[in-house]
């Protein structure tokens, strides 16, 4: 025993030596690695891949038949991109609850409020127009619980 040693307070004597190292590092860093591995694991498969965003196809026969200036949706494009689900929801309520199929778009153009007969009339390519974006952002709209994809059904019937 060191007789000079009086107590642990540095000003009086040498203090206890704490070796400069990582203590319990293997558990702690293993934990950290597991944490980061789990957190990032969903991202690995696409690492470095360029994944293009889907582009809705507008080349259906119905649209192509229209003159360039008539190729317009019931609302402007930017609105439709973000809000089409709400428009359809409003239509549904109006039609089912109010029996009202009249919809007036910008510029006073009249449309029939109908997913089946108006929207899908032009956009008969559900897979390319609706589904690919819905799949891309993982939404499952309830539209198709009632509405049928007519082109597919007709093709099957033939």
């Amino acid at each position, binding site marked *: *025993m*060191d*007789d000079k*040693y*009086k107590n*642990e307070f540095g000003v009086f004597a040498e203090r*206890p*030596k*704490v*070796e*400069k*190292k*990582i*203590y*319990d*590092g293997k558990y*702690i*860093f293993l*934990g*950290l690695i597991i*944490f*980061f591995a789990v957190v990032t694991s*969903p*991202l690995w*498969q*696409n*690492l*470095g*891949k*360029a*994944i293009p*965003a*889907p582009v809705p196809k507008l080349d259906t026969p119905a649209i192509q038949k229209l003159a360039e200036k008539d190729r317009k949706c019931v609302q402007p494009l*930017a609105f439709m*991109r*973000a*809000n089409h*689900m*709400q428009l359809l*929801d409003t239509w549904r309520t109006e039609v089912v609850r109010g029996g009202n199929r009249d919809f007036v778009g910008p510029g006073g153009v009249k449309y029939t409020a109908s997913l089946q007969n108006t929207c899908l009339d032009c956009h008969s390519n559900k897979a390319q127009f609706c589904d690919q*974006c819905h*799949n*891309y*952002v*993982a*939404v*499952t709209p*309830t539209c198709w619980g009632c509405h049928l994809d007519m082109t597919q059904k007709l093709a099957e019937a033939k």
Partner: protein
Amino acid sequence: MTDFFKLHFFVPLAAVLGLVVVAYVGVQANLQLLFGVVVPYMAALIFIEGMVYRLIQWTRSPVPFRIPTTAAQNKSLPWIEKNLGEKLDNPETTKHVVGRMALEVLAFRSLFRNTRTELRQDPDHPEGARLIHWSYKWLWLGAIAFHYAFLVVILRHLRFFTEPVPGFVYLLDSVDGFLQFFVPVVYLSGLVLLVAAGYLLLRRILRPELRYISLAADYFPLFLILSIAITGILMRYFYKVDIVAVKDLALGLATFKPKVVAGIGVIFYIHLFLVCVLFAYFPFSKLMHAPGVFLSPTRNLACNSRWVRHVNPWNYPVKFHSYAEYEDKFREAMIEADIPVEKES
């Protein structure tokens, strides 16, 4: 309202509002590259580096003593049996320590134990009042609702970072939105997160002793998380943005093929910026309680120090009064009192 409260409440509030303004002005000035790409990457980098740095700081200090809080019967005579709960509350083996930690981390075991004590005036009592204690689970409920809602919200956001989107995200999505009201379908987790964070904030403000102890460091993360939740909810239900474009941007970040995507509304950038700030702030704040709880020496050690030797890495010899010194002092008296001695004189 004390000046102390004003300082610690309003400064972080102003800071968070300031952050919102910064993002808004930045996007108006067409700094989408900065707010959509540079800031998120920087935030992720700070988060990871900060976390590693803080953990290294902690690991530089050893755990010299076994100081677990023993919350149940210790290992004793073989016929004193312990049920599973007692084994987890006073763990003897690594297996049970893992169980204790799992309960602590996943179910907030200690908080579940919470009680409330109140001084109740009672004129019939000889002293006119008495203390009563009862089980109080509201804080536990608020905390668990907050954390799990946050977790669900984060997991749901995987739909922006993965392609194809994994099945469990769809499952989570349908469970979270099972009430199927409003368009788009309302996610319960978002509401729960908002309500729970609101509760955590309100109790700080309304309960005097909590208001007394709360610091800016407590309000700031709450304001931040609340603003993140609010901007997220506004964006989903009210001020809509082009979600395909958002995913395009997010995937670009996740795949390290970053790109600036045009046509995303400003509210998205505000939301993203606040999230980035949260990530960057995390390692330098009390939010480190998340990794910290795993390191807590009152929880993560087996209570086996009576039968397994533990070494303190900085153990050092101490001067203590030796028996020889003691006997030298009392020898005569000891001999007289017939107490055995080593040396007779």
